[in-house]
C-alpha cells in the first residue's frame, strides 16, 4: 500500500524524521518499503534565507549583476551572480547554496547548484525565483522571491523548505503483509511507526458530536443479517441527507492523488479516504435508488442471480458469494466486500445516501473476488480481516467528513442514527508468554519489563513478571497473535533482529555422504563433449510419443505448450537441437538429467487424489539421463572431422556405465524389434535397448499398464539414431543420435570399486574369423561374443571386435573377426592350451551359429 508521509504525520509525531528514516525503520520492522517517491517539487537543501548587502554591475554582461549576499549575521557575504531585475539591497531572498537541487524554471528539470564562474565572475550559489522552488501561485510573477516584501522578518540562514508552504509529500510504497490486515491503513502503520520509534500517537482531532445529528426525514431504519453470522459478524448503516455532490475538499483530493487514487466525487472520495486512513472499507448507496426505502439485507446470493457492478460489467453470482440486497424487492445492490452495484451508485444528482461499514468474512470475500475475477482495495482489506470493534469508529469518521464537506449550501448534511446488526464485541484474547521460551528460541534474554515496553505501544497490555507474562491482545490483532510463538515473534521484531547474536549450531549428528551418481555422470558426459541442458518438464499436450493413458496433466495450464508432465527427455532435447541449429550451430551435443512423470497404476491406492490425503498422489517420478548428439566430433584444421555414428554414441554410453561401476557382463544390448511403438523417435534398425542380463520379473497382479517409459523392469535405457521422420519434422539438419537411461535403475546396479591385482603373465593374442551364411538371418556380434566367452575358459581376458565384413548389403555371407587376449595372473599360458580353447570356441560357433572357418 502507498503511505503518505504527510498523512502519517497526522497520527504520529514525525518531527525531526525524514521519510527515508521512517521507511528504513518500517523495512527493518516487518513492513518492507520497496521505494520512497516524492510528490511535489524535487528540492534538496541547503536553500536558506539570505540578505542582499550590495549590488554591482557584472563587468562582462549587461543583464547580469553581482551581489554580495549574507546568510548569517556577521559572516563574510557570498558573491552571487543574479540576472533578475527585481533585486534591491536589503531584500531577504531564498539562496540555494552549492550542493542544493532546485527546479530549472525553463523546463522543470532538476538544477544542481555549484560554485562556478559565470562569465568570468565567481558565483557561490543562486538567488531563487518562485518557479525554481516549485511555487506556482506566488504573487511574484517575475524575478526573485522577495521574502520581506510585506514586512516579514524571516531569520537569516533558516531553511526555506520549512519556511515556505511548498506542497511536498513523500509516498512510502509498503509491501502489504498477508497476515496483517490491521496495518493496511495510515492508522495501522502509524501504530507501527510509533512503536518502532518509541513516539506517542497523536489524539484524534475530530468528534462526531460537534456536528448536528438530526434525525433524518428518511423512512430507512433497518439492516438485517439473513446469512450465517460468520459470513458477516457486524454491519452498520447510516442515512445522510442534504448532500451536494461535487469535487472533494483539496486536502482529501491531494492526498488521494498522492497515493495514486483516482478522485471521483466528494462522497466516494471520503469513503476511499477513510478506508486508507483507518483500513475500514465503506460503501455509499444512493438512498433514492434503493427500491425498498426502509432496509437492506445481508445474504448469500442465489444461483442465477446477477448484478451489474460499478465498473458496468454484468456479473453472474453464485451461492458462495455474499451480497447486500434491498430487503423487500430483493434487488441486489452490491457484492459484499467486493464492489457495489451500478444501479445504486452515487451520481451527481444524489442528495441522500446510505453509508455502509461492515465486517465480512475474509474467506467469503476472497472466494467471491476469485470467482468474479474482481479485486478491489476493499476486497484486499476484507480478505486480510477487518476488526469488528473498529467498524463504528470508521463509520463515524466517514459520516463526520461527509457532513463537514458534502453538505449543500443551505446547511450541513443531516445524519441519521447508526443502524447496526450483528455484534462488534470481540472476545478478549489473553496469551501467556514464558520468558524462558524467549531465551530458548531467540538465544537472548528479554525481560518482562522490556516485553511490556515493546508491546504496549502496539495496543497490547502486558502484565506479570519474571517467567510468567500475560499479554492481552488488542481486538485488531487477534487474528495474527494467538499463541506464545506469535508474541515471541512480535517481541523479536520490535526489539530488532539485529540485537540477536549470530552463532553456530552445535554439531550433534553424523552426515550421510551425498550420492555421487549424478555428479559422476555429469563429469563423464561433459568430458565426452556434451553440454548440459535444463529443459522444461511441462510440455505440449500433443507431445508425439506420449502415452495419454499414463499422462499426468496440468488442469490449469498457462498454455497448451505447458500442459503435460513429460514422459521422456528426448523431445525437449530435439527442440533444443533445432533451436541451436536455427541459430547457426551445426554440431549440437547436449545431455540432460531430469524427471519424467507417469501415472502409477501399480502403487495407486484407492484413496489417491482425495482431498486432505497425505500419502499418495498416484504419480511415479523417475530420474532419467538423456543425450542428443548431432554433427561432427573432434574438428581441427589439419584433420578429417570424425563423423558421429551409432557406435560413437553407444561408446559414450558404455563409458558412462563403466564410470558408474556397472558390470558390463550383467548387461545386454538388443535390437529394437517389437518395441517400436514405445520409442517412436528411434530409428528401428539403428537403435538398441539396454537391459539387465536377467529375465524380467512379471508385473504385479492387477497392473494394467507399466508406469515407466521402459516397459520391462529390466530395461535400463536405449541408444539409437533419431527416427528420420522426427528429424525431418523438427528440422534437425543432420543425422542425430540419442540415448536415454533410467538413472534410478542404473544407480541400483552400481557396485563398490575393488582392485583385483595386475596380471603379470604375458598376454597372448589370437585372431579368429568366423564365416556365416546369413541367407535367412543375420548373425549378431553379441550372439558370437557370448559363445566365445562361454567357451573361452578362465584365461580369456578380452574379446575385441576387429571387423564385420560383408561384400555387399545383399551378400549372403558375412565374416566376423575377433581378437582374443589370453592371460594368466602370474604365469604364461601354454600355446597348446590356447589351441585347445580355440578349438572349443570353433566347435561351439559351428554348432550354434553354423559358422565355418578358414584356416
Amino acid at each position: 500500500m502507498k503511505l503518505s508521509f504527510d498523512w502519517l504525520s497526522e497520527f504520529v509525531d514525525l518531527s525531526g524524521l525524514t521519510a527515508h528514516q521512517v521507511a528504513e525503520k518500517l523495512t527493518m520492522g516487518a513492513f518492507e518499503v520497496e521505494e520512497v517517491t516524492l510528490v511535489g517539487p524535487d528540492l534538496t537543501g541547503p536553500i536558506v534565507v539570505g540578505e542582499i548587502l550590495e549590488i554591482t554591475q557584472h563587468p562582462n554582461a549587461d543583464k547580469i549583476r553581482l551581489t554580495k549576499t549574507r546568510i548569517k549575521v556577521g559572516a563574510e557575504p557570498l558573491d552571487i551572480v543574479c540576472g533578475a531585475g527585481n533585486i534591491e539591497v536589503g531584500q531577504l531572498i531564498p539562496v540555494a547554496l552549492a550542493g542544493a537541487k532546485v527546479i530549472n524554471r525553463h523546463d522543470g528539470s532538476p538544477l544542481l547548484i555549484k560554485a562556478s564562474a559565470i562569465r568570468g565572475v565567481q558565483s557561490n550559489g543562486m538567488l531563487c525565483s518562485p518557479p525554481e522552488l516549485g511555487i506556482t501561485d506566488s504573487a511574484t510573477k517575475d524575478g526573485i522571491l522577495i521574502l520581506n516584501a510585506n514586512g516579514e522578518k524571516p531569520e537569516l540562514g533558516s531553511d526555506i523548505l520549512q519556511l515556505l508552504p511548498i506542497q511536498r509529500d513523500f509516498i512510502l510504497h509498503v509491501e502489504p503483509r498477508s497476515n496483517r490486515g490491521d496495518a493496511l491503513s495510515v492508522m495501522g502503520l502509524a501504530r507501527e511507526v510509533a512503536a518502532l520509534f518509541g513516539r506517542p500517537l497523536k489524539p484524534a482531532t475530530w468528534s462526531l458530536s460537534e456536528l448536528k445529528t438530526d434525525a433524518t426525514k428518511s423512512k430507512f431504519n433497518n439492516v438485517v443479517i439473513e446469512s450465517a453470522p460468520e459470513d458477516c459478524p457486524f454491519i452498520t448503516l447510516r442515512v445522510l441527507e442534504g448532500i451536494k455532490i461535487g469535487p472533494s475538499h483539496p486536502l482529501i483530493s491531494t492526498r488521494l492523488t498522492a497515493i495514486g487514487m483516482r478522485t471521483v466525487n466528494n462522497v466516494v472520495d471520503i469513503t476511499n479516504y477513510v478506508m486508507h486512513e483507518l483500513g475500514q472499507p465503506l460503501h455509499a448507496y444512493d438512498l433514492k435508488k434503493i427500491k425498498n426505502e426502509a432496509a437492506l439485507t445481508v445474504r448469500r446470493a442465489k444461483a442465477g442471480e446477477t448484478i451489474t457492478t460499478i465498473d458496468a460489467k454484468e456479473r453472474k453470482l453464485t451461492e458462495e458469494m455474499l451480497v447486500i440486497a434491498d430487503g423487500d424487492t430483493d434487488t441486489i445492490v452490491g457484492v459484499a466486500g467486493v464492489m457495489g452495484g451500478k444501479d445504486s451508485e452515487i451520481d451527481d444528482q444524489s442528495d441522500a445516501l446510505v453509508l455502509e461499514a461492515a465486517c465480512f468474512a475474509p474467506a467469503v470475500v476472497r472466494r467471491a473476488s476469485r470467482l468474479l475475477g474482481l479485486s478491489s482495495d476493499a476486497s484486499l482489506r476484507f480478505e486480510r480481516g477487518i476488526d469488528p470493534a473498529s467498524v463504528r469508529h470508521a463509520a463515524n469518521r466517514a459520516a463526520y467528513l461527509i457532513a463537514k464537506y458534502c453538505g449543500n449550501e443551505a446547511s450541513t448534511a443531516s445524519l441519521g442514527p447508526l443502524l447496526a446488526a450483528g455484534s462488534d464485541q470481540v472476545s478478549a484474547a489473553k496469551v501467556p508468554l514464558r520468558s524462558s521460551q524467549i531465551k530458548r528460541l531467540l538465544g537472548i534474554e528479554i525481560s518482562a519489563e522490556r516485553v511490556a515496553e515493546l508491546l504496549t505501544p502496539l495496543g497490547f497490555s502486558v502484565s506479570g513478571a519474571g517467567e510468567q507474562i500475560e499479554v492481552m491482545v488488542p481486538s485488531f490483532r487477534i487474528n495474527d497473535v494467538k499463541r506464545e510463538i506469535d508474541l515471541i515473534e512480535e517481541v523479536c521484531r520490535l526489539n530488532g533482529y539485529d540485537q540477536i547474536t549470530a552463532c553456530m549450531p552445535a554439531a550433534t549428528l553424523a552426515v550421510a555422504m551425498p550420492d555421487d551418481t549424478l555428479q559422476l555422470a555429469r563429469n563423464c558426459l561433459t568430458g565426452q563433449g556434451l553440454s548440459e541442458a535444463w529443459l522444461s518438464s511441462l510440455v505440449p499436450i500433443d507431445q508425439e510419443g506420449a502415452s495419454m493413458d499414463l499422462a499426468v496433466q496440468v488442469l490449469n495450464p498457462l498454455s497448451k505448450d505447458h500442459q503435460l508432465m513429460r514422459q521422456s527427455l528426448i523431445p525437449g532435447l530435439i527442440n533444443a537441437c533445432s533451436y541451436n541449429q536455427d541459430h547457426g550451430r551445426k554440431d549440437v551435443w547436449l545431455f540432460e538429467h531430469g524427471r519424467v512423470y507417469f501415472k502409477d497404476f501399480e502403487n495407486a491406492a484407492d484413496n489417491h487424489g482425495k482431498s486432505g490425503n497425505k500419502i499418495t498422489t498416484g504419480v511415479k517420478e523417475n530420474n532419467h539421463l538423456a543425450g542428443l548428439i548431432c554433427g561432427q566430433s573432434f574438428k581441427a584444421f589439419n584433420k578429417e572431422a570424425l563423423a558421429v555414428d551409432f557406435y560413437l554414441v553407444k561408446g559414450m554410453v558404455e563409458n558412462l556405465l563403466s564410470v558408474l561401476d556397472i558390470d558390463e557382463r550383467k548387461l545386454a544390448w538388443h535390437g529394437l524389434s517389437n518395441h517400436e511403438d514405445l520409442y517412436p523417435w528411434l530409428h528401428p534398425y539403428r537403435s538398441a535397448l539396454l537391459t539387465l542380463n536377467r529375465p524380467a520379473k512379471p508385473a504385479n497382479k492387477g497392473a494394467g499398464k507399466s508406469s515407466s517409459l521402459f516397459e520391462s523392469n529390466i530395461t535400463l535405457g536405449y541408444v539409437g539414431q533419431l527416427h528420420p521422420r522426427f528429424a525431418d519434422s523438427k528440422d534437425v539438419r543432420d543425422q542425430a543420435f540419442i540415448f536415454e537411461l533410467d538413472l534410478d535403475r542404473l544407480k541400483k546396479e552400481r557396485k563398490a570399486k575393488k582392485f583385483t591385482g595386475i596380471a603379470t603373465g604375458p598376454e597372448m593374442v589370437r585372431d579368429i574369423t568366423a564365416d556365416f551364411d546369413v541367407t535367412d538371418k543375420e548373425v549378431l556380434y553379441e550372439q558370437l561374443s557370448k559363445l566365445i566367452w562361454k567357451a573361452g575358459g578362465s584365461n580369456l581376458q578380452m574379446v575385441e571386435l576387429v571387423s564385420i565384413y560383408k561384400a555387399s548389403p545383399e551378400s549372403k555371407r558375412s565374416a566376423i573377426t575377433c581378437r582374443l587376449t589370453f592371460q594368466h595372473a602370474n604365469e604364461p599360458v601354454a600355446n597348446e592350451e590356447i589351441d585347445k580353447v580355440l578349438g572349443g570356441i570353433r566347435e561351439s560357433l559351428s554348432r550354434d551359429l553354423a559358422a565355418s572357418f578358414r584356416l
Partner: protein
Amino acid sequence: MDAKEFENKIDGLVSAALSAIESTASLDGLENLRLQYLGREGELTVILRGLASLDKAFRPTAGQLGNQAKQKIEQSHEGKRKYLYEAGLTERMAREAIDVTAPGARYPIGHVHPLSQISSEIISIFYSMGFSVADGPEVETDYYNFDALNTPASHPARDEQDTFYTNMGPSVLLRSQTSTVQIRVMENNKPPLRIIAPGRVYRNEEVNARKYPLFHQVEGLLIDRDVTFGQLKGTLSAFIQALFKKPLKVRFRPDFFPFTEPSAELDSECPFCNGKGCKTCGGRGWLELLGCGMVDPNVLKGVGIDPEEFSGFAFGMGLERLAMLKYDINDIRNFYTNDLRFLEQF
C-alpha cells in the same frame, strides 16, 4: 713380416681408414667403412687374426700396435657417426617445421549448466556444515504443499502462490515450494535433523524475463534441541560468505511465512559494489537473497515432534535468482532455452 713392415702396414691401414672416414658424408657410407676395416672380415680384423703367425718375440708389440689402431679407427668412426647423426637430425627436424601459432586440435569438452554449478556449490557448502541432501516428489498433495506447512485452505498465502493442479485428483498439485520436503523428512526421521533439498517447483505465472512457470529452490531444515534464531543467523551468514567468497555483511529483516515464526528475509550486502549501491542491487546496497525463520510449532506438532523439546530453523532460496546475480544473467529464460552460446560460457 718383420716389425717394421708390420708397423708400416698398420700405419698405412689406419691412415687410409681415417681419411676415408673423414671424407664420407653419409651414415650408410660410414657403416660400410666400419665393416671394411672392423667387420668380421674387415682389413684390420684379418691382420689382427694373423698375429698368431708372427714371431713370438714380436707378437706383444704387434698386438699392442693392432689394438691401438683399432681404437683409433673406432674413435674416429664414433666421432663421425655422432656428427653425421646430429647433422641428419638437425636437417630432418628443420624439414618437420610446423606453424605453432595455428590453433590446437581441441577435443570437445561439454559445459555444466550454470544452475547445476550453483546447486553443487550450495550443496557442498551446506555439506561442510553437516547438512545431508534430501529429495521429494514434484507432483504433491495439497497436504504437503500447504496444510502441513501451516497453510490451511482459508489461509490467504494459499492464493498468493498460483498453483498448478493436476488430473490426478483435486488435492494433487505441482509443488510450489520445496518446503514440502521438510515435512516428508520430519515424518520419516527423528531429530536431530539437518537437510537441504534442492528441487524444481512450479507456479502458474506468465513467462517474462523474471518469471518462468517452473524454477528451482534449495530448501534447508535444521531441527535439534535448543536451536535458536541466533544459530539461524550464524549458519546463513556463513553460507552467504562462502557462496560469494567475501566477508559480506548480512542483515535479517522481519517477514512472514506461514510455516516459520519468527520469519526473516536475509539481505546480503551487495557483493558487486560491497554495499555502495550499483545497478545489480538497484542502488540499495543490499540484495534480498533468501527467506528463513524458526519452524512454526504447528508444523512440528503436525509431524509428531514436540515443539517444547525440539526447535529448529528452515530456509529457502531460489537457484535462478542466485545464479542470475552471481553470473550477471538478466533473463531467466536463458536457463531453459539451452542455447549453446549461453551454455558454453559456463
